């Protein structure tokens, strides 16, 4: 069992770990790197890294982020934030939990496609981004530019 918390007290947490180099992951990693932030990106397949911009200067790790040694390699104990944005909800939730519970990463954000799973994340104090909920909200705004309070309530509960 790694003792991430002790380690992190000595060393300043100073970079972001992005798990999953899909469109979202690659885009976030590239723009963070362009801003001069430290970035570590993890993906299972080497091919997916070509989506990164050529100016990406962070660290690239090929491997399964649900495996401990990969997270160790990424030095997760020193990370200031973790974004779990793979295409699979289950992977995201597991990586996010590991980051939160074992390494004490301060900011953990996961993407999930299935809104019903959101309650799981809330229990662990993990921030979530759900494309489904976001789209729902946006579509609601487009269809009803200035919804009455009652209608807005409708959209949210739907």
């Amino acid at each position, binding site marked *: 069992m790694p003792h991430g918390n002790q380690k992190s007290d000595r060393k300043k947490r*100073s*970079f*972001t770990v992005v798990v999953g180099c899909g469109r979202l992951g690659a885009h976030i990693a590239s723009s963070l*790197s*362009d801003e*001069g*932030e*430290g*970035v*570590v990106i993890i993906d299972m397949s*080497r091919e997916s890294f070509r989506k990164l*911009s*050529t*100016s*990406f*200067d*962070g*660290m*690239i*790790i*090929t*491997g399964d982020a649900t495996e401990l*040694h*990969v997270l160790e*390699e990424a030095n997760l104990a020193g990370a200031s934030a973790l974004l779990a944005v793979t295409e699979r909800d289950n992977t995201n939730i597991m990586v996010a939990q590991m980051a939160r519970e074992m390494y004490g990463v301060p900011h953990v954000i996961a993407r999930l496609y299935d809104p019903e799973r959101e309650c799981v994340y809330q229990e662990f104090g993990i921030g979530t981004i759900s494309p489904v909920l976001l789209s729902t909200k946006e579509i609601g705004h487009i269809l009803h530019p200035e919804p009455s309070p009652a209608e807005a309530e409708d959209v949210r509960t739907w």
Partner: protein
Amino acid sequence: MKTILSRARRGGYYPRVLMFIALMIAAPLLTLPFSPGEAKYAPAFLLPAAVLALTGLSVAAAARERPERDARMWQSPLKNGSLPVLFAWCSAIAAGAAPFVLGGRLDPIYALFESVSGWSTTGLTVADVTDMPRIFLFHRAFMQYCGGLGFIIIIAIALHGRQTASMYNAEGHPDGLMPNLRRMSIAIFFIYTGCLTLGTVVYRLFGMPVFEALCHAMSALSTAGFSTRAGSIGEYNSIPIEIVTVVLMLIGGSNFAWLLLLVERKFKRVAKISEVRFMGGMLAVFIPLMTVSLVARHGKGFWDGLHNAIFCVVTTFSTTGYSLDNYAVWPPAAVGLIMLLMVLGAGTGSTAGGIKLLRAYILARVTKANIVRRLSPSHSVRIMRYTRAQGEAPIDDKLIRDTLEFVSVYAAVLFAGTLLIAFFEGSSTTLEAAFFEFNSALGTIGISNGLTARASIGTLIVEMLGMLMGRLEIYILFLGLHTAFDKARRRLLRG
């Protein structure tokens, strides 16, 4: 002033490079307080530095602000970075040669040779160091130190730009080991400067004068091999100094990434790295072989043979090129071993040249796998993996293809260069001597059999190209030239 700075930032990459190189050329002036008699040479350094700095500033001032072109992002990273890197190296070479000419020490072509040999960390020399003023000796050593680190690392420390990453890759450095390139460059810089300080102090403790200690430490760390003495390290005739040199050369021949791990005290991870093991194995094979060939065929005593062998093996494979002895009189078997080591080179992403140990290691693994495949059932599946500083990685088809391609291009260049030198030197040399000398230039080693010192202009030019290719990993030269021609052609066509 502020506007100039903001304009310099806006002018893109080129002005900044020029200004950095100006700083590097001006650096030897720092030795003047210690040897005031050489003040007359100050203009020889100030003038090129001033010209570079002014050019940089005026280019920056003339540059219009233009939006970042996103189309660039779609090009391959290597192609993208190769032109700026080539530009940096070419201007540095021209600027590094200028002081020798202006100071009246060398003719232009010889000055250029000395400059290429310096920046590319080779260490072949056409200069006579016995009556060279200190400021020039420092200039040579400092060029090597900066060339070993690489311009892009130095530039990456000072600024963060969108292009830095692709240039960093183009210059042939290790993959990202830290989440941020700038932090990694700073770490590398500190490790090297730390080693430099330590090396200088230890040399001094073993009786080397301070100035020579500094110059030798700079050259050894960058695996370059310019010495302040005509007889190189051998002139001190001191075992402790040899040991210090061997350690410094080994540090220089190690991948930056290993050094980072060592500094973080992750010794176990370092011991697991395939390339480190391969290096250990290679030392364990070549040192006894060299000892035997020296003892049996050169009439040396065992201890004499052993320390000569250790020094010679380390100096050759780390591509440094310091010498204890005149290698030209060594027995053929020993010379053959030296040639083999020259081709092998040291760690990938270190300051060394050659084909690099990692490639040799992968070739060995592929050869073994080929034999095993022929012996095993046709349906068997094998996955090859190797360990890098960053962790395990598969040896996949792409890696194998890149390795094979590089090795064959390297061999082709080696043969072409050898033949050219044999042609230029005519009957005054043998093919073996030409091969030795070009091998030494291409691998950026710098051990000479004496051919370079009396070489014709043609040979010098061939060797210069060889050194540049060796330091920048061959491809980048072609890619940079191609990009440059491409750009020029497009501009012409557009009218």
